[in-house]
């Protein structure tokens, strides 16, 4: 069952089809919420977003891809949450075990690589909100410029310029650190 079929069935009230759609996108939705600042409330945000998505499914344009439409709802819910808390959005993510497995037979090289990633992550965290959101969407979530524009509700040109500024700032930060 592809997205289109799942959506058709969901619109007809088939909750099993919608459940399958939720299962397909829940990991990505969680990553998006957590990386855009939902923190330990990512799970609540994601649940809320999927319930809203179902209730507004009839407004989804069928010729458009589902992923950016859904992630926009997730991003909006995350923004509502961080606005409600009145605090700066923060990227909440931890370096996972996979970072340690980069070169199992080269512990020293692995340590250096992990250290570099830690510093790069710290630098991403310190970016101004808008630039960080652009970098998170483009590289961490691997969305295209057009998808990022849709998810964050920006123009494509704005995505380009904020990504560019973010990258320049990161290059300056980690370059100075590691040079």
């Amino acid at each position, binding site marked *: 069952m592809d997205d289109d079929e799942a959506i058709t069935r969901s619109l007809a009230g088939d*909750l*099993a089809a*919608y*459940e*399958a759609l*939720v*299962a397909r996108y*829940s*990991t990505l*939705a*969680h*990553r998006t919420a*957590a*990386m855009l600042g939902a923190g*330990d*409330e*990512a*799970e*609540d*945000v*994601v*649940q*809320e977003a*999927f*319930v809203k998505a*179902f209730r507004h499914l009839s407004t989804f344009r069928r010729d458009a891809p589902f992923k950016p439409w859904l992630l926009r709802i997730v991003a909006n*819910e995350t923004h*509502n*949450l961080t*606005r*409600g*808390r009145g605090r700066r959005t923060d990227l909440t*993510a*931890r*370096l*996972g*075990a*996979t*970072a340690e497995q980069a070169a199992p037979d080269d512990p020293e090289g692995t340590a250096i690589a992990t250290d*570099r*990633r830690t510093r*790069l*992550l710290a630098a*991403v965290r310190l970016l101004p909100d808008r630039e960080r959101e652009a*970098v*998170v969407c483009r*590289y*961490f*979530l*691997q969305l295209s410029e057009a998808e990022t524009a849709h998810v964050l509700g920006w123009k494509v040109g704005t995505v380009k310029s904020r990504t560019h500024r973010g*990258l320049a700032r*990161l*290059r300056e930060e*980690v*370059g100075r*650190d*590691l*040079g």
Partner: protein
Amino acid sequence: MTSDDPRDLEAELIALGDSLDAPDPAGVAAAVRARLERPEPERRRAPRRIRRWQLVAAIVLAVTAATAATPQGRAAVVQILRYAGIELRVGDPAPAPGERQPIPGERVVTLDEARRAAKFPIKLPAELGDPERVTVGDGGRVVSLTWPGGVRLDQYDGRLELVFRKDLGPPWPEETRVGATQGWWISTHHTLTYLPGGGGTPVPLRLAGPTLAWQDGGQGLRLEGVASLTRAVRIARSVR
């Protein structure tokens, strides 16, 4: 990061993103489905849903439509939902009360005094810490805790009688979950009226902010003044 090639940084960011742990989304699909399966006021025209709804109504709540809902006349239709000691009227919102009124007999007390006066065990939300002010109203029928910034938690016996009425315009309040119980989220400002025990004259209290209403055992609770549903549910879940 020894090279100046912009592609190196982009590739490194992608690798970094791949190495980041995301929270485990286990159970989301089932939880979402469970929420969507529960009857919703707007959807109660489906016969099966009405039956399930009425089953719940036998325990804690009742839903009635004052007049037949037609697509054209929807906005004018007053729909009533009774839950956890609260009557919600959705339709043409009532005019807001001119001035704030306290609950009859409301007085400031200490938490211990409130515990002695209340007709139910008082619960505290760990998430908010100690309240700034505690009041008991109407001979211990309602206990209100307040925190700085207009956050307020009212507790009352929600089993037998209606305690509050809320008049609001569309949309319908949103159904949500507070732990294992059902809750209702009213995101808009609305008129809050106190309904004294024994059928006394209703007392218009004030224009209330966003509110989450839920029931814990026989106790009705309403949390007012938290703008985000997620945050409100988080606070509600911390109530012990």
